[in-house]
């Protein structure tokens, strides 16, 4: 189509009209938010440290993966978690204890500065002692404070010998029974 002066002017005016109409249209979309009209347009900000208006740890869904927690009483020291961890953030040291069915977990350190919260360790934990807590506020002042220790501590040589005797005793008891 050959453009005449009139069509050029008309196109120009239409362009200006579109410009102002789109300004008006944008404003019209956003204006109802000023009055917070309805459920669709309410404020969504979580005022996070405020315990009244923001969600707390109790509001998290059941599966949420917070900081890890190990129930050391149930832990058998099988090191499954240490082996599957994709970032090697779990370190376990064990030794033989008094109970022959489980090991004495001397050291169970989780380095949360490395942890990616993938949950593989929890999945692979057979005695189900390792679990995700609902805790998620892990900020500390020093990097070394990010290491959580759940171990029972290294024992003395004397204690070790005492346990060995106990185990021997238990074994001989079983033989007699």
């Amino acid at each position, binding site marked *: 189509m050959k453009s005449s002066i009139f069509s050029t002017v008309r196109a120009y005016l239409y362009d*200006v009209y579109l*410009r102002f109409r789109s300004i008006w249209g944008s*404003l019209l979309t*956003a204006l109802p938010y000023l009055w917070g009209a309805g459920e669709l347009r309410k404020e969504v*900000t979580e005022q996070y440290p405020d315990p009244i208006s923001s969600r707390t740890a109790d509001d998290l869904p059941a599966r949420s993966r917070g900081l890890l927690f190990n129930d050391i009483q149930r832990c058998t020291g099988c090191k499954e978690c240490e082996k599957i961890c994709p970032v090697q953030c779990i370190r376990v040291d064990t030794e033989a204890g008094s109970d022959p069915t489980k090991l004495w977990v001397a050291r169970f350190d989780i380095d949360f500065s490395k942890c990616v919260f993938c949950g593989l360790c929890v999945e692979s934990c057979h005695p189900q002692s390792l679990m995700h807590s609902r805790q998620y506020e892990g900020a500390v002042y020093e990097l070394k404070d990010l290491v959580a220790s759940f171990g029972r501590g290294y024992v003395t040589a004397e204690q070790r010998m005492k346990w060995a005797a106990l185990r021997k005793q238990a074994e001989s008891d079983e033989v007699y029974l």
Partner: protein
Amino acid sequence: MSSYPQEASWINLLSSTLGFTPGTQEWVFAAIGLVFIYCVIILPSAAMMSFLDRKLSADFQARVGPNRAGPAGVFQPLADLVKLLQKEAASTDWNWREALWLGVHTMALYSTVAVIPLGSMALLVDTDMSVFLPFWAALVLALGTMLLGFSQASVPGWFGGIRIAAQVLAGAFPSLVAVLCAGIHSGDYRWSAFVGAQAAFPLRWTAFSDPFQFIAFVVFVAGGLVMLAVPPMDAAVSLRDLHGGVSSHLFGRRLSLYRLGRFYGFFLWSVMATVIFLGAWTLPFGLGGVLRTREELWLLQLLETLWLLGKTFLLMLAITSLARVHPRGRIDQVTDFSWKVLSPFSLFALIGSALWTGWGLLR
């Protein structure tokens, strides 16, 4: 300086309140007046507008906005200022060029405090040129900002500087023509003439007196946005864009000075738009005349200023809320808008309002 009526000026009221003798030099009055207006009107306005802007945009965006500093966060601007003031320099070498041009553009800008119309008695300078002085200030502001950008020796600075200059040149022409339109309507370019041509009722405001004046009003406001690089026409100074602009190298005290200057430009322009087009400070219900006959000059001045500032703030809020929902234009699109849309419409409005006023006179 001596053009203001000696008896009715609020400066005389102020000086008698402060205990100055009548023999004091005039420049002392003027200096006191400038500092007084700056501290009592412009700084609180900046704080208030920044707070209102943030709260309003938060409402638009389904957020809460500032809410920690004071009740509902009203002291947030103050907290921001204190934080900016105590920032240390990133490097130890003093960029004296930057300081110089920042100083130049700040001084040029605040010299217009002398002409800012804030009420029937707060007219320090009311000559037939006074409406054009802010244009000069905006041009010097742009020059200062441009050289400020050049002095930063960085790509964002260069581009930002050149773009500021391009924008101010593009915006100045249509806004000047829009002022001419209003001048045709009022017959003079004194502030008092602009005020005298309007009344309190909105249909008697210049902007709504005839369709051409309304076009002139829109052109004046939009041209001012382009000239002073106010969002959404802030392609030259936006921090979000890759080129950053002049402010990308400023920090701390310099940044607060720069941003206050930017705000003041916007404020000045909105005050001008209100005075020229939106009925100025004329109080409704004939309140002004009543107070004047009762000689309650302080009260009159106070009410007039508040009325004017209220209208100004509403205008500014309308513009900022528009900027929140609207995408930003590219620099060449902004200047194109000014040259290709605003300028033809301003000329159209000029011819139209001339004919309209001429027709009215002939009748």
